């Protein structure tokens, strides 16, 4: 039986923010899992680096390569849409990625542990797939690694457009399972008899990626089995919506973050209406030092509107009091509805004035 570790979308970042060290820590965790799970090879399905400047930074690249070289097994790496080999990104082809990495720059067939792996680097179009010169399947199993979008795959992320991988490509080449990168949330889909699997990003990259991170363990024997392996030590993205108008929101926030991990990244979204005389920035600055250091990263985002004279009216004041008394548990849809209610009140107030 052959065992592969399927991952991708690490988006290693050189120096734009504190993601630099963290992204390398995640890479190290993945390499460590390769040893622990005794896999035969790693399948990196694109977007390992976030941008060209990340692998162009020799210092950062050498740190990444030092980790990659510690991997006990080969790493098959196809470029993703962030690593398009055309134009200015072409230098990835010449980047020194160490002794373990095999960068696949053209569609080609790799045979590893008696499994045929069709490696398909990202491309805007795959129309010419019939002319790739890939022979008929001669092993028991032929799988593929690729990067792009799949028709019919419903996802909720913010991933930009990438090349569309239709099942015909893989039917043509006799592939039964395709292991993909691009969508940062793990999931699977079966189309025309071909099974597509997204491993998701092993770390939270964008602020909406609140799911627990992990990768796929692919076992190829008599059949192909995919097991989800979670990486809680990597941490998760936490999004907290807070009603800014509520003066007690710092206490409410503190109650919400109880139980969060030190590697978690927390994004606090202050929403709704806020009184003009309420110095929200000052409140944030007083809260932030208490949170920083306890978590990997804490961010605040303000999505507030001025309260104006809404609460000067006793009736609106009564509404506000009643609203405040109805505070639901944070995190759910009811909470979102609750937060937005005052905004609707403000809208209605303006309309009623007309």
């Amino acid at each position, binding site marked *: 039986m052959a065992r592969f570790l399927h991952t991708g979308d690490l988006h290693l970042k050189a120096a734009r923010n504190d993601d630099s060290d963290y992204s390398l820590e995640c890479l190290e965790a993945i390499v460590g899992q390769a040893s622990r799970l005794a896999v035969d090879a790693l399948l990196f399905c694109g977007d390992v680096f976030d941008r060209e400047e990340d692998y162009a930074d020799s210092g950062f690249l050498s740190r990444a390569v030092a980790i990659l070289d510690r991997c006990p097994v080969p790493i098959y790496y196809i470029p993703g849409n962030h690593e398009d080999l055309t134009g200015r990104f072409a230098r990835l082809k010449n980047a020194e990625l160490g002794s373990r990495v095999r960068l696949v720059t053209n569609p080609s067939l790799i045979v590893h542990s008696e499994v045929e792996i069709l490696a398909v680097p990202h491309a805007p179009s795959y129309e010419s797939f019939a002319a790739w010169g890939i022979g008929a399947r001669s092993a028991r199993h032929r799988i593929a690694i690729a990067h792009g979008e799949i028709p019919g795959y419903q996802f909720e992320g913010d991933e930009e457009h990438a090349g569309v991988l239709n099942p015909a490509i893989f039917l043509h080449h006799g592939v039964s399972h395709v292991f993909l990168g691009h969508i940062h949330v793990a999931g699977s889909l079966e189309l025309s008899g071909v099974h597509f699997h997204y491993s998701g990003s092993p770390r939270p990259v964008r602020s909406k990626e609140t799911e627990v991170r992990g990768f796929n363990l692919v076992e190829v024997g008599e059949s192909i089995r995919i097991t989800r392996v979670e990486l809680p030590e990597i941490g998760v993205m936490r999004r907290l919506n807070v009603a800014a108008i509520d003066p007690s929101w710092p206490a409410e926030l503190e109650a919400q973050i109880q139980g969060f991990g030190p590697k978690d990244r927390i994004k606090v979204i202050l929403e709704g209406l806020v009184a003009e005389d309420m110095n929200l920035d000052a409140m944030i600055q007083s809260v932030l030092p208490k949170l920083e250091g306890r978590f990997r990263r804490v961010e605040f985002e303000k999505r507030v509107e001025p309260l104006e004279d809404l609460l000067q009216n*006793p009736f609106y004041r009564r509404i506000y009091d009643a609203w405040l008394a109805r505070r639901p548990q944070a995190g759910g849809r009811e909470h979102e509805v*609750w937060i937005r209610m005052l905004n609707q009140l403000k809208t209605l107030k303006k309309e009623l004035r007309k």
Partner: protein
Amino acid sequence: MSDFTLTISEFGKFRQQSFGLGRVTVVHGANEAGKTTLIDAIMRASTRFTKKQSLYTDVLRPRYGEGPLPVRITRNSDGGEVMQQEHDWVRDLLVVRASELDIALRNASVEVSWLEALRGRLFTGGVNPQSIIDRVDAMRAKPQAGNGSPLFESNRIDKQLREIEIKLEGVRRELAAQSGRLKKKDELSSAAGRLSEERGELDRRVLEIEQRLVLQKTLSERRLVKEARDRLGVREQLGRELALNSGLSDATSSEIRELEAGLRVAQTHLATREEDLARRRAELQELRVRIEHEESGLSPLRADRDAAIRTDAELSALVSESLARGGARAPVWMPIVGAALLFGALAVGMNGLAGVAALLGVVLLVITFVRRAGFGASQPRANDPALRIRTLVRIYNQSARQSVDCPDSSFESAQDFLRRVIEKCKAAEASIEKLRLSVESASSDAARLERELSEAEKTRADSARKLSGLLPPGIADSRIYAEALLRQAEVRQRLNRLESELASSMGHFGAGTLEALRAAVDDRMLEILRDPIEGEAASLQQLQVWERELAGLRARRQEVSLRLQESERELAVQDREIQILIEREARQQVALEREAHALRSRRDALVLQMDSYVLLREIVAEIDQDSGQKFAVLGESIEEYFNALVGEARTIRFSGLSSIEEATCTDRAGRVSAVGQLSSGTRDAFIFAARLAFLKKILTEEDTRRDAFLILDDPFVLLDPARTDRALRVLQGFQKELGMNLVYLTKSSEARDAFAAVFDDAVRIEL
């Protein structure tokens, strides 16, 4: 004694001025004395407002400009400013003018009834809760563009999503339609794949064998090149010979060729004749030898014959003599029978008959002996015929070439024997004669051939002479010349062949390739030279196997290629079509899904918005219900104040709040009238009663409101003195009960005095 100080600075007609205000203050002044300015100053100081609100936009700014309007009211007890009240509350309830008694209420909203508006002022901040509820209900029940319903946009998105779903269904159907083709294409692909694999394998094997063959052929070509080089050398040599042999005129050559041909004919003829002659000579010689041999054998025969003839003659004489003498020899049977009898008797014993037989036998033997020895005959021994015959045979044997045995001594036998000898001699002589004739004939032929040979020699000599006359200078021997001609023709033929082969070799390789091949082959040659000869032989054998295999493989490959080309052509067409369709459909599907995803996100946000409206409605409905309950309680208070104002007991009932007509008044006679239909004074009394009831309610619940100032600007000017008095009494009771600040302004000294009569501790201000 004043409780408050109103400080006015540069406000209207007042510059730096202060007024002491009590819990109750009465201000008297003629028209234009400054009463309205004083009212505005109190409102300014005791009201919290924005520059968008009517107190500022409709009153203060038009009258006093956009300046800072420095006016304030401080408590004399602690110097602190009084608490400012909400703008709407002040405007609608705390300022009571007789001419505007209900106008302010009606101004609250042209859309709702005054009671509704009043309730809104009192309990819902001037907002009609029902309007919010109705609005939200309308959003839910009849979402449309104008009512700001999120559901309208959400429904529109739903419609778009349905359209997208229809498009997606179309895309999926199209994909499903392609699936059949895809399946067929897959089958073709599989077949083509198998063919391709087979061709790939064939290609690999062909390539492998071709490489081997190329290597071997290279070696062969190398040998060819070497041979070509050798031939070039030969060619050069032949060329040189040809050059030497050149120089003869074509005419001479032609004549020489003719002569040479004649010479060759003559030579051929001569040779034939020589051969014939030799053959004849050999035959002649052979005949002569045979003749000599036969003749040598004939001499004994002749001697035999002569001896036989003589013997025959002697025999004849002997016979005659014998016949003449008579006598005969014992018969043959006699000794035989005698011997038999004797030996038989000896065998059985000599007694009886056996003795007789033995005796008889002896007798017979004796007779035979006697007769044989001539005993008993009278002739001498020399005359015995048998003896003579034996003597003659002995003599014959001595003289004849061959000795013969005489069968017996009979005369007949001897004669027969002699006759055969004589016949044999005659046959020999006939044979000799025949040979002699042959020898003579052969001798004659030989002589003739000798003559012909001589003539042929002569003819050849003539031709040779003629030929030598035609030979070019320096060539003495025509044979050499003829050979040279033959050699020249041969050389030219070989040269042509060599040229052709060389041209073929050069054309096959090309000069550069040939040189490259030479270099490549040199290395290979070195390698081959190291190989054992057996290996080379084996490789040659293998080469043949490869050639055969290659031929088979090429044929198979050709077949496979044809099938593959056919499949690939079909596949290419299908591939292209399916690819374009699937790629397009896939992209369209992804685009539609993204669009649907964006729309769903937008719809979710709108639904969230709608839900938040619903939550708002829920809260507003609760407040509305609560305010309705409070308003119902107020009815009793209104009725109390109203009865006190009109001086009789009437019953006030509210059937609804949407219209003043829904407030009814029932008098003591039981007549029910809508409040709106009452006389203006009674209706004003009702509204004033309502104001007081509302104020009481508010001040009872919110103690901080007691700092507010109820400003009464000639409110009872339309009332008769009795109702005015009752109103002042009611107002007095209200003030005492609630401790509210009152400022009563009037231009009438009677009204001032009437007010002061009721409120004897009122602070008086005269403008």
